[in-house]
């Protein structure tokens, strides 16, 4: 969970990009790293623990500071999980302490079973950490919208965004940086809103 350091007025938040293998999670982080406008020193290195063929092995990690939020230093740590099925234990480790989730779905028709399986896997892994998806801010990104075999957004919504509460969803073409910042800004806003609400809760 987020760390609030009252001494230095710092809020540290962990956002995890989750989704099926080859869906564009790492690409999202690469695009944020390459295109984010920050003051000097506010963007850390993008660290990728990947295989020789650039498949995520453990996680990608990008520490980044939000621009100006009136006196509060808000430090975001962006992680991806490895999408491949065999790395489930690793995904559980990365989810530890998560504050917000971006689920990156692959829009291609033939990837629908993998999207659904990965979403279900997310719910199960959160449960194993005694977390409930309904209580964690999350957004959906339907990536690869530029491909000819992309399924209609309505179909993706039906498959992935049909829980009790619908969450914000975005269309993306991550390799062109389309939808990447919209997604990140929405999850950021939802997270900060959550902490504002918590902060205004009267103490018992």
């Amino acid at each position, binding site marked *: *969970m*987020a*760390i*609030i*350091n*009252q*001494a*230095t007025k710092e809020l*540290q938040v*962990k956002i995890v990009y989750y989704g099926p293998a080859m869906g564009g999670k790492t690409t999202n982080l690469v695009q*944020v790293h390459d*295109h*984010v*406008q920050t003051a000097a020193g506010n963007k*850390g*290195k993008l*660290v990728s*623990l990947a295989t020789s063929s650039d498949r995520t092995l*453990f*996680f990608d*990690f990008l*520490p*980044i500071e*939000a*621009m*100006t*939020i*009136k*006196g*509060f230093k808000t*430090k975001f*740590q962006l*992680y991806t999980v490895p999408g491949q099925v065999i790395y489930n*234990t*690793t995904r559980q*480790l*990365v989810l*530890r*302490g*998560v504050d917000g989730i971006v689920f990156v779905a692959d829009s291609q028709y033939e990837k629908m079973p993998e999207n659904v399986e990965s979403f279900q896997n997310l719910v199960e892994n959160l449960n194993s*950490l*005694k*977390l409930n998806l309904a209580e964690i801010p999350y957004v959906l990104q339907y990536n690869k919208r530029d491909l000819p075999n992309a399924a209609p957004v309505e179909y993706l919504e039906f498959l992935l965004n049909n829980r009790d509460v619908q969450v914000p969803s975005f269309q993306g073409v991550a390799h062109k*940086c389309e939808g990447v*910042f919209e997604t*990140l*800004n929405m999850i*950021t*806003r939802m997270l*900060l*809103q959550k*902490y*504002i609400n*918590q*902060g*205004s*809760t*009267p*103490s*018992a």
Partner: protein
Amino acid sequence: MATLPQLIEEDIQRLDEALREFNVQTDATTSLIIDKGGFLIAHQGDSAQFDLTTIGALASGAFMANQTIAGLVNEKNFNSIYQQGETFSMFVCNVDEYCLLAVIFQSQSGVGVVKFFAEAVVKRIAQQLAVARERDPAAGLDLSVMNLADPQDLFRKKEL
């Protein structure tokens, strides 16, 4: 899952003091308190030559991965990892359910002294975090100054 405590000035001062004394005792270059989720909580020593944020995230991941491996081979007494280098080495040990202590030290120093003094400092750190945890978690938190309606406050894409 329980959340980490909010840390106030007093907590940070006590944690810093514990780390400072530990660094002197062990001749450590840098010591860090990190959350098991990968956040850097406090640090003392040389922070100029290391990327402590990234080290925190990776050390936490490495510790958790090794703990899982230990569990898979039925080892229940897992408490620390040690990375032996030629110039600098690193020792990471458990503080409590939520936190770790990571120590970067010159390899010529040897890990023995680090392990020895870590035992005591870990108790001090755990004690302080317990004190912080017992405080009212909502006390004094005021993020309402943030203007979330203003999208300029968040991440902006560079204009090409």
